[in-house]
């Protein structure tokens, strides 16, 4: 392959000239290369610069140069050998000539200084020029032994002397006590003039175990110290170093070796206690975790496996829904056997606090759009023949859709639900104030199943659900005015089912006496925002235990707008189902409660609902002898127990 020219064309003549010259020269070069490739020219001497030429046996070689070396880039020496022609070995038989190509007219000159015993020719500083090609040749009597390969430039034949003052210091020992690091340092060779900057040297350290055969070489670097990592305690190491010019190829000789050894140092055994401590610590932590898990099993199960919401019917104790208690349930629901309600699915009731009650829409199984259904529901509800307040008012708070999502299809047949709802109609307690709208559900958070019952509306003007617009300090609830004077508004929307069940129970008991005097009822006052159930008011806990709560304290009045009187829509629930009560109308227009709080059950298993205080307790059913303050609107399961005669 001939080297290619890069031709540029500044000017045409120049172009031509250069082109021609280039062609000529390249052809010349190509020829030479070809010839050399063919090895056509005799090579009386072998070159010392090319290492791989040494494979030729020296036996057949004539006189040749063995090596030319410079140590400091200021002087250099060349050695020759007579080769196989021993008659030339006597000193003076061969003479060294050199050519310094620093000008086109340079000529061959004889060696400036001979050292015959070494067969060495020494070129001192005056005769040494760097960056200028030298060629050397041997001449005998009439013969010139010349190899074209014996040409060089001084910087290429530099092999610096090895560094001096090599020593080592211990850096550190590994924690395991098995390995250590050593810092080796040295000084640059004195012959190399590093201080002036004339030579830039890089160093290579090699080390090996004492009896090993292979040396480990570290990375070359120009500094005068280096760290050897990972030597083993107890072993003896041998270290030596050599140097070379940066960015050149030829290394100098190795220095003398030094020996490194570090004997074992008794090391404290820190590891065993540490391990023990670790193990114990881990065991302890595990134990604590186990304890926590075991003690909080319920909660963890709740977190990990949240229960699937299922429809619940507010006010019905799940216990009752289980097998064996259908009669009781029926009894309760039917107000003593008027009609037997079919047994509900036993699965309805669960005790998850967060479960909202499920609206069971007869026509539309999903609890979905309450507003839409409300009209018909109300109508249906109002159409119920039964006025007994029985069962419970399942008031579902429309706040959020939880519970509805589970789209539980109640199994209630239509007219059962009607009856159910009928029983929801508010009953008037005997007293104004004793119609406690105790929070219906003390069963803790029990979702209600709001059953929307369709059917003819018998109670034309009765809204089954009434909105409590305000809570009187005395404990009375101001419900939204409805058509029915007697119907007291219940606060619907209570998930206030979330009354503590058990707590209520006891309270209920305790309240028996005070029932009359206790205006407490826990209502959830929902302010109608214009339709539907205003969801904002979710209150969790409307109930404080009736015995203890301050009147009205347990309620959250979202936005009492007592004066806002919405026509109770004469039973039309197109407008908001919540009708604000008008306390100032004590007259016949008792606000029709959309939701009625069941205060207690009377003897006839009717639900006593809390009438508005100013109204005649016409709707108030005779107080149940039980005098059990009922949770608002709902009968909690444990209360049911009380209700059972």
């Amino acid at each position, binding site marked *: *392959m001939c*080297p*290619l*020219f*890069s*031709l*540029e064309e*500044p000017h045409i003549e*120049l172009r031509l000239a*250069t082109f021609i*010259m*280039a062609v000529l*020269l*390249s052809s*010349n*070069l190509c020829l*030479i*290369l070809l010839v*050399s*490739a063919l090895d056509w020219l005799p090579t009386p001497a072998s*070159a010392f*610069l*090319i290492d791989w030429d040494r494979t030729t046996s020296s036996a057949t070689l004539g006189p040749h140069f063995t090596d030319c070396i410079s140590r400091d*880039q*200021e002087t250099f020496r060349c050695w020759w050998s007579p080769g196989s022609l021993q008659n030339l070995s006597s000193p003076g038989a061969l003479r060294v000539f050199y050519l310094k190509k*620093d000008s086109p007219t340079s000529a061959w000159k004889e060696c400036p200084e001979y050292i015959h015993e070494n067969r060495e020719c020494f070129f001192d*500083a005056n005769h*040494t*020029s*760097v*960056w*200028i*090609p030298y*060629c050397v040749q041997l001449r005998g009597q009439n013969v010139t032994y010349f190899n*074209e*390969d*014996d*040409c*060089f*430039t001084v*910087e*290429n034949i530099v092999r610096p002397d090895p560094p001096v003052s090599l020593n080592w210091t211990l850096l550190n020992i590994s924690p395991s006590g098995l390995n250590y690091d050593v810092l080796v340092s040295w000084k640059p060779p004195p012959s190399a*003039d*590093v*201080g*002036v*900057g*004339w030579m*830039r040297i890089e160093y290579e350290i090699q080390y090996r175990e004492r009896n090993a055969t292979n040396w480990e070489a570290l990375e070359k670097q120009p500094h005068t110290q280096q760290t050897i990592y990972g030597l083993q305690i107890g072993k003896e190491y041998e270290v030596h170093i050599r140097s070379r010019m*940066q*960015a*050149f*190829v030829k290394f100098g000789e190795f220095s003398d070796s030094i020996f490194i050894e570090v004997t074992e140092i008794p090391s404290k055994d820190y590891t065993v206690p540490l391990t023990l401590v670790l193990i114990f610590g881990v065991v302890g932590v595990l134990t604590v975790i186990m304890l926590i898990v075991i003690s909080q099993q319920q909660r963890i199960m709740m977190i990990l496996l949240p229960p699937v919401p299922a429809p619940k019917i507010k006010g019905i104790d799940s216990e009752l829904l289980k097998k064996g208690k259908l009669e009781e349930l029926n009894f309760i629901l039917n107000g003593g056997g008027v009609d037997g309600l079919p047994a509900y699915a036993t699965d309805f009731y669960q005790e998850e606090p967060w479960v909202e009650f499920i609206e069971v829409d007869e026509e539309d199984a999903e609890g979905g759009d309450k507003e839409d259904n409300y009209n018909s529901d109300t109508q249906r509800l109002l159409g119920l023949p039964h006025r007994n307040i029985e069962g419970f008012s399942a008031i579902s708070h429309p706040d959020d859709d939880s519970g509805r999502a589970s789209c539980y299809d109640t199994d209630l047949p239509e007219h059962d639900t009607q009856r159910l709802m009928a029983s929801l109609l508010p009953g008037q307690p005997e007293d104004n104030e004793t119609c406690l709208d105790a929070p219906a559900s003390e069963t803790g958070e029990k979702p209600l199943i709001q059953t929307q019952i369709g059917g003819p509306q018998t109670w034309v003007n009765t809204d089954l659900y009434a909105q409590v617009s305000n809570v009187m300090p005395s404990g009375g609830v101001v419900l939204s005015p409805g058509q029915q004077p007697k119907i007291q508004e219940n606060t619907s929307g209570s998930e206030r089912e979330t009354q503590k069940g058990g707590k209520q129970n006891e309270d209920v008991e305790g309240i028996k006496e005070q029932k009359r005097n206790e205006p407490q009822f826990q209502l959830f006052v929902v302010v109608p925002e214009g339709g539907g159930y205003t969801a904002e008011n979710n209150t969790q806990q409307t109930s404080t235990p009736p015995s203890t709560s301050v009147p009205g304290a347990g309620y959250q009045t979202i936005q009492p707008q007592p004066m806002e009187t919405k026509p109770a829509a004469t039973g039309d629930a197109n407008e908001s189902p919540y009708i604000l009560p008008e306390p100032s109308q004590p007259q016949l227009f008792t606000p029709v409660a959309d939701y009625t709080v069941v205060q207690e059950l009377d003897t006839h298993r009717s639900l006593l609902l809390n009438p508005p205080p100013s109204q005649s307790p016409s709707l108030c059913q005779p107080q149940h002898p039980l005098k059990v303050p009922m949770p608002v609107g709902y009968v909690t399961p444990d209360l049911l127990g009380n209700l059972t005669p």
Partner: protein
Amino acid sequence: ALCSRLSSMRAASSCTNGQTGCHFLSLANLFDRVIQHSARMHGISNDLHSEFELYFLPSKNQIGRVSRNCHTSTILTPNGKENAQRIAREELTEVILKLLVAWREPLWHFHQNMAQHREFNNFSSNKSLEMSEMVHELRRGVQKVVEKMQMLGVINSSLGNLGSPEALLASDRAEWRLMNDYDLLYCFRRDSNKIQNYLKILKCRIIPEHGC
């Protein structure tokens, strides 16, 4: 390395006028950067030269075969240690700059050539590009050093600006176009070694205390 060197050089010039020590330190810094740069440049040229020898002219020592002198042979350079030390600082600096200026174009064309020929692998082609860029950067670096030195009075300001047209014209001579690739690489290898050497000597003459 290029960018860090240049940025450090800019940073170094932010020394206020009053502090000589700071100035000399920054000058030493500048020199170090420049010397590092030149060392790297020489390393690359060495690599390229060896590769070229290996692939194209494998068997023989080619020194004897250099058919002509390098185009920079006309630049008088000190060829020995004593010469380099005896020469005036300004002359030495000028030599360095002349060399750098002379090589800018040839290397660029060499790279262009290499980029087109597929004989050289990409690695070598990248090196040739790097080499040509380094020459340019190094020249700018050395000029900054010279400015600094002139500012400090280390050298007198007789040194002309070698970015001047005549210097550029000198490099535009067609001599280098006659060289083949091998010769070019050989010559540049030699010259980059010279540059590296001269820079180091210059630095140790001017600021001997830091790292000489």
